């Protein structure tokens, strides 16, 4: 018997999920800005204790590694590193865009998952839903809003996340031809899907790494390292 703890802190809502082998056990979501670090410990303790699971029982952690909020990613990854360091759990890095794509899991066909990367850019990847399973079709990347708009296939379902940015405009031009699922309106259980992704690869030892090899996938350098247009 293997327990899988799923952790997603890549966006505004923090998600914690728990699977026992391939079976869902519990899910917890909390939509409050800038408070992941304040609540992650209690959220994990709560989900484990109400299900009579000891922290030492958790030997697999599925964690979103990006792209997304830089600070949010670091909170989840640092927590997972500390947890795994203490009890020897293995970790499975999960793309936050892959988690996001699950909002369209009832759709058959192409899915584009996209996150507002600020400064007019978009983090995006494409997937395909086959019999309820989300299969990747392109790698996570960062591109301009225009490039993103040009890449959208006519029959694709678009799942977007503004990461709580009220002034976000990068997704306002999405054509009405496409089905558009803004995550703010169609929220998903991020922790649940993170844990389920981990549970789906439990039998594949190559999918699991030691915490020391766990790194965030920022997809972007720190702004300080990007040369300014003025030079």
């Amino acid at each position, binding site marked *: 018997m293997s327990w899988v703890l799923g952790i997603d802190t890549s966006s505004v809502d923090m998600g914690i999920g728990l699977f026992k082998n391939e079976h869902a056990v519990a899910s917890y979501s909390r939509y409050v800005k800038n408070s992941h670090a304040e609540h992650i410990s209690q959220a994990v303790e709560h989900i484990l204790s109400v299900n009579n699971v000891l*922290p030492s029982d958790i030997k697999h952690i599925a964690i979103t590694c990006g792209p997304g909020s*830089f600070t949010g990613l670091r909170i989840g990854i640092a927590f997972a*590193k500390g*947890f795994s360091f203490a009890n020897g759990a293995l970790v499975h890095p999960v793309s936050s865009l892959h988690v996001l794509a699950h909002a369209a899991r009832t759709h058959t066909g192409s899915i584009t998952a996209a996150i507002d990367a600020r400064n007019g850019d978009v983090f995006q990847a494409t997937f395909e839903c086959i019999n309820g399973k989300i299969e990747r079709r392109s790698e996570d990347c960062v591109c301009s809003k225009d490039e993103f708009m040009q890449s959208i296939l006519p029959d694709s379902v678009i799942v977007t996340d503004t990461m709580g940015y009220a002034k976000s405009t990068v997704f306002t031009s999405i054509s009405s031809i496409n089905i558009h699922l803004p995550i703010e309106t169609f929220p998903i259980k991020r922790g649940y899907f993170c844990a389920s992704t981990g549970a789906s690869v439990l039998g594949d030892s190559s999918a699991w790494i030691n915490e020391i090899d766990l790194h965030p996938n920022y997809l972007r350098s720190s702004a300080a390292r990007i040369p300014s247009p003025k030079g």
Partner: protein
Amino acid sequence: MITLGIESSCDETSIALLEDERIIRNKIFSQQEHSLFGGVVPEIASRAHLDKIDRLTISVLNEASIKIGDIDLISVTDSPGLAGALLVGISFALGIHTASGIPITGINHLEGHICSVFFEHPQLRYPFLALVVSGGHTAIYKIIATGQYECLGETVDDAAGEAFDKVGKLLGFAYPAGRAIEQTAASVENSSNPISFPIAQVSKIPGLNFSFSGLKTAVKYYTSSKDDAFILDNRPRICAAFQNAVIESLVNNLWKASEQTGISDVALVGGVACNGALRSALKNRFNNRVYFPIPSLCTDNAAMIALAGYYRNQNGLSRFPRLDPSSSL
């Protein structure tokens, strides 16, 4: 009792292990990349902390032959500092705490600096005054007991260490510039024509407060009125004049604090406590009733955080970590 200390409030990632009040290991990784930018870049600092924190912890535990189960307390800096940097240390500590059940306490970084003096001077008794001087903080505290502090004054603008770095930049020194300014100033022999910079008197806000931004501006105006060759030739005199102004401000306010409170014992802590000229000036003024940490424990380190946590634990004052980037105790 074994305490694991975790510090990540600025640009040093540090992990330490203490057995009661004795340092078993204290490892510090100083991020060098900030020198390219002339100051600490928060996002770069946060990324670097995450890259190093687990490797450093593993290395410290392995070198000390201590297992996670041997640890009795986790002590982590939770304020003040760069929010993103603090969050890495706090989240890592919370992960260990949640998985292992080891008790945890959050520690104010300044409290850690104040406790650093006890490694060298365990005989120091309460109450005493602490002058905390670093790149991010300049303040005088009355230390009443463990966890009981009264702020008697603090900087209203730049920290003293920050002023050293900014003036160093004006004079062409690399970041951080404190040591270069001190060494350059030391090369001045009795000057017959010393430069003089003003010492700010902060009177609008109650307390023994400091201000260093005006001093920095005075140096800026002085250097901009001279040509490059003059500045290069007179760099030692400028450094000495600037350093003397900072030291006089610090020593004067600490002396006033001592007179007002009747407390004669003072501790100098923080990164600027490495400055030999400041140490000498305080020793002279306070008749040797001044206490310093050893230089390696003046800069940010996890041993001081672990010690502060140990003291809090012994006094029943442990508290759950909370992020509070405010700059005082």
